[in-house]
């Protein structure tokens, strides 16, 4: 697959949550190439998280086609999810959660390892590498429930990086993070995009976006209302303009 080939292809897709009266995403068409850095914006309830979960094959597609990494998501989402990292928004863990940071990061590889097989040296190496990338290797043996919200956020990001994803779907990755961590993660995401990892990011913290041109996709009421390249520093203005929201 070359850099010009799309890794995410969505054609006229409609998706709905179970029991919902109407589709949450309506007639979405989107093509994202390998190594692209895409920022998805829009008001609350616009369908941003739904778009990420549709790409990841976690929602039923009622109409249209979603192809990710060459797999049709509608048929079987599991091979897709083994290749795609998805950081969910607003997670916090009970202090008594009986898992250490190392165990949680290793979970990111479980889909790749497959049923009835144990993690091997390659998996442990991937876990160590992603912990080091996030600067949290010293927390490996700590129970996750005893960490701060920001540290837990980094652990979940490390979990996603541990499976060497071709695509990273990030839902509010900067929530709970201090300014130094935001800058470090921005640098990391820019580097990953440069190495060919496709990054699709939903965020409301537009001041913390990387210092590089990004593709901005704005959503309203389950539809894409704008899709264009944007210079660094102007993402917030582009999204506000497209959403009809003025400061």
């Amino acid at each position, binding site marked *: 697959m070359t850099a010009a080939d799309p890794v995410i292809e969505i054609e006229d897709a409609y998706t709905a949550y179970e029991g919902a009266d109407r589709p949450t995403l309506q007639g979405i068409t989107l093509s994202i190439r390998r190594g692209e850095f895409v920022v998805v914006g829009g008001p609350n309830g616009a369908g941003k998280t739904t778009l990420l979960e549709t790409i*990841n094959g976690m929602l039923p597609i009622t109409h249209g086609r979603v192809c990710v990494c060459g797999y049709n998501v509608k048929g079987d989402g599991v091979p897709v999810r083994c290749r795609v990292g998805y950081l*969910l928004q607003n997670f916090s863990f009970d202090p008594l959660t*009986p*898992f250490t940071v190392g165990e949680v990061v290793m*979970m990111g590889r*479980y*889909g790749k390892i497959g049923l009835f097989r144990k993690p091997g040296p390659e998996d442990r190496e991937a876990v160590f590498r992603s912990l080091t990338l996030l600067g949290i290797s010293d927390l490996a043996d700590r129970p996750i429930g005893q960490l701060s919200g920001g540290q837990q956020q980094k652990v*979940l990001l490390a979990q996603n990086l541990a*499976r060497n994803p071709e695509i990273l779907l990030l839902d509010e990755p900067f929530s709970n993070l201090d300014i130094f961590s935001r800058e470090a993660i921005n640098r990391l995401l820019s580097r990953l995009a440069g190495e060919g990892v496709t990054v699709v990011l939903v965020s409301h913290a537009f001041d913390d976006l990387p210092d590089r041109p990004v593709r901005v996709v704005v959503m309203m009421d389950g539809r894409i209302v704008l899709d264009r390249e944007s210079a660094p520093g102007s993402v917030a203005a582009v999204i506000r303009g497209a959403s009809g929201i003025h400061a």
Partner: protein
Amino acid sequence: MLEFIIQNNIVCHAVEAMLFASVACAILGVIITQIQISSIGFTMAHAAFAGAAFGMFLSLNATLCAIAGGVLVAFLIGPLSDKARVSPDTALGLLFGISMAIAIFFIAYMQTLGRGFSAMGLLFGDVVSLYREEVYLLAVICIVAILFVAVLYKEICGIIFNKKIAESVGIRVRPIYYAMLFVIALTVALCLPIIGGLLLYVWLVTPAAIALQFCYRLSSMFILAPVVAAAISVSGALAGLEYALPVAPLTAVLFSLVFVVAVALSPKRRVTFRKS
């Protein structure tokens, strides 16, 4: 199996049954408490109870009917909450109520027919009148529970950690979750005649709750919970038979006492501060 240590056949069968039942319940109890589906275990226990009461009324095999009751509830929870548009909690409440109503109806009806005593054994358990085959069946379910956790350990960990995250990393959550419910239903149904429908919940929840007081890792919980459950259950069986006390209720009280001591001794509640 343990005849070389315990010569008395009745005591030997009782100890073996309590050992296997407690280990199976404790292992699955770790999953139940950590996924926070204790109410599913509770409802399954009562559905198995209703199934057994129904089976006794029709002079069918009570154990098979108990298994059918537990499994039926396991597979009704999901569809009922989806189709009836109610929360899983409400679905469980409905199934629990229906199970109890069925069980009480048949027990009451059997009492009017003068057959109530045999059904009452299902409420409080009976370790004295066990056949060798029943003990073997418990040994089998104990091995099934251990193998289930050993073989699917990483998938179970993922589901316990968070079902949505587990799905997002590529674990096939739904079939494993249903397999989990099936093994729980099977275990609950087979343990019902020994422990009793009213006390089974203690075996499912308390060992895991005791282990959680000391363990920071799930793997440690899967070892400590069955060890504690086996020790308490065997002690309860021996003490109950020695002093002619009801075995299952006595063991349930022992579980509760150990839990209180565990909470008091738990390092997780200790606050330590050292000034350097």
